[in-house]
């Protein structure tokens, strides 16, 4: 093992050995006044320049790696998002997309993805799939020979976005099925809106009485009007209210279309 070097901080005397001498032979300072001189070749990893260069290089490398992964994987991810959206729409129609390829099932069941305006007139027969919440989109589906309408809904939960799809029978008022999902609701509480137990509660409820949207989620055990109201999740009140507001807000914009 190479010997270490110690420098006396008082007089600058350099001692070679395994440890600092008890007293400095030149000025008599005690061992605590000696500091070790690192004899390593290469960089001093504690110098300012090294730290700055290290930080810069690290950040550039990490940024490059992240940018590269992001751009390489983007097309795969977008495809997955589209597939997942199809799965969600199918799920609101009570079609289990796990049984087959969601893309083929989607082609099979969904006839049109039309865009409507606030008056309930159809603007475009197709092309609604790639529109976000800025357009009123209605998916027209055919399940077992019957026409169903699927309406996408968007809203806010407790921690972040919630969204879903509500499918209606051909009377445009009775709920056939629903699908809800969320970005970051509390597991075990608000996140329960994504379970089929909660989603099934909406089946065969009515959306509106002809004038306004009556379909609501109310506090657990407080259902007074079972034709329109659904039990909320106990402990997930804010998320449940979020679902309710989302249904009122979004389905309200479709009132004219639904009454036609």
């Amino acid at each position: 093992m190479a010997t270490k070097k110690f420098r006396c901080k008082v007089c600058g005397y350099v001692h070679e050995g395994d440890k600092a001498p008890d007293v400095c032979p030149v000025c008599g300072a005690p061992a605590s006044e000696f500091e070790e001189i690192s004899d390593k070749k290469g960089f001093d990893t504690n110098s300012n320049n090294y730290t700055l260069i290290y930080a810069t290089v690290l950040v550039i490398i990490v940024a490059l790696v992240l940018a590269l992964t992001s751009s390489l994987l983007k097309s795969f991810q977008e495809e997955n998002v589209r597939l997942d959206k199809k799965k969600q729409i199918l799920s609101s129609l009570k079609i289990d997309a796990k049984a087959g390829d969601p893309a083929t099932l989607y082609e099979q069941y969904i006839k049109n993805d039309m865009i409507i305006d606030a008056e309930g007139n159809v603007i475009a027969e197709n092309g609604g799939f790639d529109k976000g919440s800025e357009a009123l989109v209605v998916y027209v589906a055919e399940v077992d020979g019957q026409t169903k309408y699927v309406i996408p809904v968007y809203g806010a939960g407790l921690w972040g976005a919630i969204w879903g799809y509500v499918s209606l029978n051909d009377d445009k008022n009775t709920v056939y099925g629903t699908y809800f999902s969320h970005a970051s609701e509390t597991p075990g509480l608000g996140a329960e809106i994504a379970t089929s137990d909660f989603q099934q509660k909406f089946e065969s409820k009515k959306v509106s009485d002809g004038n306004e949207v009556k379909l609501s989620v109310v506090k657990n055990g407080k259902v007074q009007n079972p034709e329109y109201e659904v039990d909320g999740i106990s402990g997930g009140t804010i998320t449940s209210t979020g679902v309710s507001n989302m249904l009122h807000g979004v389905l309200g914009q479709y009132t004219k279309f639904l009454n036609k």
Partner: protein
Amino acid sequence: MAKKNKETFLNPIGINNPVTVQVLGICSALAVTAKLEPAIVMGISVTIIVAFANVIISLMRNTIPNRIRIIVQLVVVAALVTVVSEVLKAFAYDVSVQLSVYVGLIITNCILMGRLEAFAMQNGPWESFLDGVGNGLGYAKILVIVGFVRELLGSGTLLGFKVLPQCFYEAGYLNNGLMLMPPMALIILACIIWVQRSRNKDLQEK
């Protein structure tokens, strides 16, 4: 040396558990243990990320400037987690949807920083890998115990399946809603620490 490696790997699972003895990673233990399934998912994710972050930091340990070491560790962890989550999003979309909530929790998990700072900065890659896997599993073990108790008593289910027979409810049994609230995770955790401390006299402070 083999014995030392074995200890590095086994100690965190048992007598030097990161959650109950080092008291690290409590925050995420509260957040994800209302159900068993997220607890398992989180446990596995943290195990994988700690192991690989440990290896990377261990390989870099001689070059990292002392004064910015925490930032360097954080950057490495954040980049690693982001890359993994992007790859999952592209090739295992269902898994990534499940994990999306946890990505932030994994990056800020103190077990990661704790192990990087306390172990990987001083030890070689292989020991660091074992230490990471051991600590991850130790963390997962506690999460699974807490998740098991909370889901069973709070919802009457395990992994989403009903396990308490209907006759319990007919006889007047009610699910304990308090179990689903975060404070119960702390109380259960405290009970686990209590049991462990009364069985291991070494852990008790004089």
